[in-house]
């Protein structure tokens, strides 16, 4: 095991920016850079040599952590520990509480969770669905250029840009329903998040139906009838087989989770 760490020493240049601006500069165009937030995903990959990056950009001292509220706008810095999200309202709070265990939630960062690669056995990125349901935007950088865009547009290029923060308007109501995990350390097999904004817009999104979280527009269109909306959600996803669940099981459970979220949102109306 110690020998693995010696390999880290030999191969990787470590960058430790002291501010967000320094982090943006150090990231550059992102080529050959592995970003390290809390380390919960990257460090084991280094230990077991699944990753041997030329450069590692460690964000721990870049001052990018914290939750800010500006009126009704909530902004979450990329290196905010997942544990700091668990007391936020649904869907994000209960979604964050469903990630791993206390120690890993306290180390792992929101940005790392959002930007994680697809994983070896199952998709990662538990928080993506909840943030899509909230209509969150992502602020990110590459080549020194900082842009803000809907999280859904950011996710496909999340390995090419440095995520700085996500933000969203506090919803009028929210709900989260996920499959129970066989063990605290399993990634989310399937979860549905819903949020109703102050102007009445309803958004639904799923995590665990593909490479990253997706919005469920067909289910939203049928939201007046939760059972029909659950079935309609199957038009918005392509369930897959992986180590956590089969495509068949996911397609049976997704309508149930959609219905539960809509029922809970109705009760809070």
């Amino acid at each position, binding site marked *: 095991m110690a020998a693995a760490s010696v390999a880290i020493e030999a191969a990787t240049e470590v960058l430790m920016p002291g501010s967000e601006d320094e982090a943006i500069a150090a990231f550059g165009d992102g080529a050959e850079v592995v970003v390290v937030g809390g380390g919960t995903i990257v460090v*084991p990959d280094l*230990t077991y040599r699944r990753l041997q990056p030329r450069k590692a950009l460690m964000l721990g001292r870049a001052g990018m952590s914290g939750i800010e509220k500006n009126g009704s706008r909530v902004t979450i810095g990329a290196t905010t520990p997942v544990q700091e999200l668990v007391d936020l309202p649904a869907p994000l709070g209960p979604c964050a509480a469903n990630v791993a265990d*206390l*120690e890993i939630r306290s180390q792992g960062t929101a940005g790392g969770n959002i930007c994680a690669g697809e994983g070896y056995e199952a998709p990662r990125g538990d928080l993506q669905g909840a943030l899509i349901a909230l209509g969150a935007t992502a602020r990110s950088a590459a080549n020194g250029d900082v842009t803000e865009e809907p999280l859904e547009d950011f996710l496909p290029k999340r390995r090419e840009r440095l995520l700085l923060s996500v933000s969203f308007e506090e919803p009028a109501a929210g709900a989260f329903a996920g499959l129970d995990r066989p063990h605290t350390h399993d990634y989310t097999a399937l979860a549905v998040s819903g949020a109703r904004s102050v102007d009445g817009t309803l958004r639904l999104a799923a995590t665990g139906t593909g490479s990253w979280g997706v919005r469920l527009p067909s289910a939203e269109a049928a939201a007046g009838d939760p059972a029909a909306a659950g079935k309609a959600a199957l038009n918005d996803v392509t369930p897959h087989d992986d180590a956590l669940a089969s495509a068949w099981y996911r397609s049976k459970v997704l309508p149930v989770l959609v219905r539960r979220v809509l029922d809970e949102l109705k009760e809070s109306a």
Partner: protein
Amino acid sequence: MNLTVNGIAHEVNGVELMPLLDVLREELGVRGPKAGCHQGGCGACTVLVDGEPRRSCLMPVAHADGAEITTVEGLGAPEDLSPIQQAFVHHYAAQCGFCTSGMMLAAQAYIDRGGTDEPEAIQNALAGHVCRCTGYAKIVEAVAAAARGDEFDLSETAVGKYTTMTTGGAE
């Protein structure tokens, strides 16, 4: 980088990305944190970093720079066990013992933040330490006892009813 481990200050010269666990075990010879899975799954490497439980196998040592680290060696000594260690002995909460040091540190942090003897809260606090054996009822009992501040006479534990059970056939 500077680490204070169980009250002793160390200067370490590793790579920033090296897991804290490897620095503790290989460089400083502190072997209480166990290298079980080396990927965050078993909890056996858990230490306290500034009083908070952390997986030392997942933490780049740079993130612990300047921190106070407590390992099981810092809880108590064999002749002077801490309350949580006494509770584990009294309640027979160690099974093979490999994950016990990490569990006791997570339990210590739980008690330090005001945790009660309520079983569900204890199970949540120790959720990341449940890997594969079966002795969890005893562990939850031990943590509950320590959370209540129970006191134990360990000399009685050592020659208590369980010893009688194992020698009962010869009497």
